[in-house]
C-alpha cells in the first residue's frame, strides 16, 4: 500500500482511511497519531483522568479500524472520527455518571453555589460547565473549543441542526444564570456591530 503524498489534510485523511479499510496497520497508526492530540485535549476537558481519555481514544480507533470499510464519504473523515469519539465519550461519561452519582445542573436547586466565592472567571466557568448536562456541554465545547460549525456539530452528534441549536440555547441560558460575571459590558464583537 502506497501512502498518500503530501496532499491537503482532508485528502490525506481520506487516503489513510482507504488504506485502513484495506487492513493497513501503518495507516491506522498514522491516523491515530494525527488525531490523538486534538482528541486528547478535547476529552481531557471532561475527565481529569488520562486513563479515561486514552480508553475513549483507543475505543474510538478500534471502531475506526473495524468500520473504515463502511465509510461512505457522506461527511469529512475528521467529522466521522470526531463523531465516533463523541458517541464513545458520551457512553463513557454516562457510565461514569452512573458510577459516581454525578449530577447535572438540572439536579441542583437554583444558585446553590454562590459565584462570588469564586475569584476567577475561569473557576466560575469550570463550575458552570461541569454542571451542564453532558450533551449541552459537548455541544458548547465542539463550537467554542473545537471551532466546529453548526452543520458539522449536527453531523458529529448525528442530530438535526435544530437539536444542536436547542442544546446550545439551553447551555447558554444555564451558563448565564451561573456566570453573571460573563454577561454585561462591551466586547469587541458588540463594539464592531454596535
Amino acid at each position, binding site marked *: 500500500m502506497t501512502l498518500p503524498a503530501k496532499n491537503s489534510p482532508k485528502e490525506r485523511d481520506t487516503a489513510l482511511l482507504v488504506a485502513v479499510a484495506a487492513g493497513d496497520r501503518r495507516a491506522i*497508526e498514522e491516523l491515530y497519531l494525527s488525531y490523538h*492530540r486534538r482528541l486528547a485535549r478535547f476529552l481531557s476537558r471532561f475527565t481529569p483522568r488520562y486513563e479515561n481519555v486514552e480508553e475513549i481514544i483507543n475505543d474510538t*480507533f478500534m471502531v475506526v479500524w*473495524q468500520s473504515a470499510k463502511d465509510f461512505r464519504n457522506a461527511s469529512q473523515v475528521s467529522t466521522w472520527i470526531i463523531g465516533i469519539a463523541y458517541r464513545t465519550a458520551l457512553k463513557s461519561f454516562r457510565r461514569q455518571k452512573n458510577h459516581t452519582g454525578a449530577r447535572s445542573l438540572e439536579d441542583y436547586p437554583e444558585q446553590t453555589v454562590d459565584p462570588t466565592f469564586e475569584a476567577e472567571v475561569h473557576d466560575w466557568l469550570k463550575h458552570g460547565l461541569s454542571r451542564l448536562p453532558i450533551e449541552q456541554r459537548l455541544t458548547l465545547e465542539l463550537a*467554542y473549543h473545537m471551532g466546529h460549525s453548526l452543520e458539522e456539530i449536527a453531523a458529529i452528534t448525528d442530530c438535526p441542526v435544530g437539536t444542536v441549536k436547542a442544546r446550545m440555547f439551553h447551555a447558554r441560558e444555564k451558563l448565564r444564570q451561573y456566570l453573571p460575571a460573563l454577561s454585561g459590558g462591551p466586547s469587541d464583537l458588540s463594539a464592531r*456591530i454596535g
Partner: protein
Amino acid sequence: MTHNRRTENSAEHHEVSALLPWYVNETLEEGDRQRVEVHAGNCLTCREDLAAQQRICEAIEAQPALNYMPVASLKRLQARLDTLAAPVSAPPQEQPANRMPWRAWMAASIAAMAVAVALFAGDRWVLEARLQPSFRTVTRSVPRPQGEVIRAVFSPTITLVELQTILDEAQLRIVSGPTEAGVYSLASNSTLTVHASLALLRQHSTVRFAEGTVLEPESGNSP
C-alpha cells in the same frame, strides 16, 4: 399590523439569537453572518448576548489543556488490534493485491528475525566485528536498515528545549546537522515506525519540513 411586525421581529430575534455562538466562532456562512450583524445592530439583547458568548468562548479557549504523549497509548491500541479476530481486518476478497498488508509482513518479519537470531548465535564474533560501528538501543527489537533517517527542518525560532521535546515525542535523535540549510538528519530511538515519527513531527507548527529518506516498505506491527 403592529402585532404582525412584532411577531416577525420576535421570530427573527429568536432565529438570530440561535446563530450567535457560530457568529462568535466565525463559522457562519456570509448570508447568516450579515443577518446577525444587521439584527444585532438594532437589538440590545443580542449585542449583550454576543458579548457574553464571546467571553465564554475566550474563557474556554484560554483554559489550559494537557498535552499527552500518544506513543504509549498507540502501543496499547496496537496490542488490542493484535488480539482482534482475523476476519475483522481482512480486506475484501476481490482485492488480492491488498491481502498482503500486515499479516504477511508480520510473518516475513518473524522469519527475518529468526534468521537474524540464527546468524547471531552462529557467528556472534564475526557479526559483532561487522556491527561495531553501528548502534542499537535495548528497546529496538527490530533492526532498521542502516542510514535510515528522517530529514527535517525546524523553525529558526525554535528553542533547544522545544526541539528536544519534539524529538522525544517522536522518539528520534539527531544523527547529524543542522546543515547550512538548517537540515537535521534524524534517526529513530525506538521501534516506532518512520511514518509514525513523521506524523508526530508534522503535527508541530515549528517543523517546517520532514520527510523520510528511506521509508519502510511496511511496518506498524512492532510490539
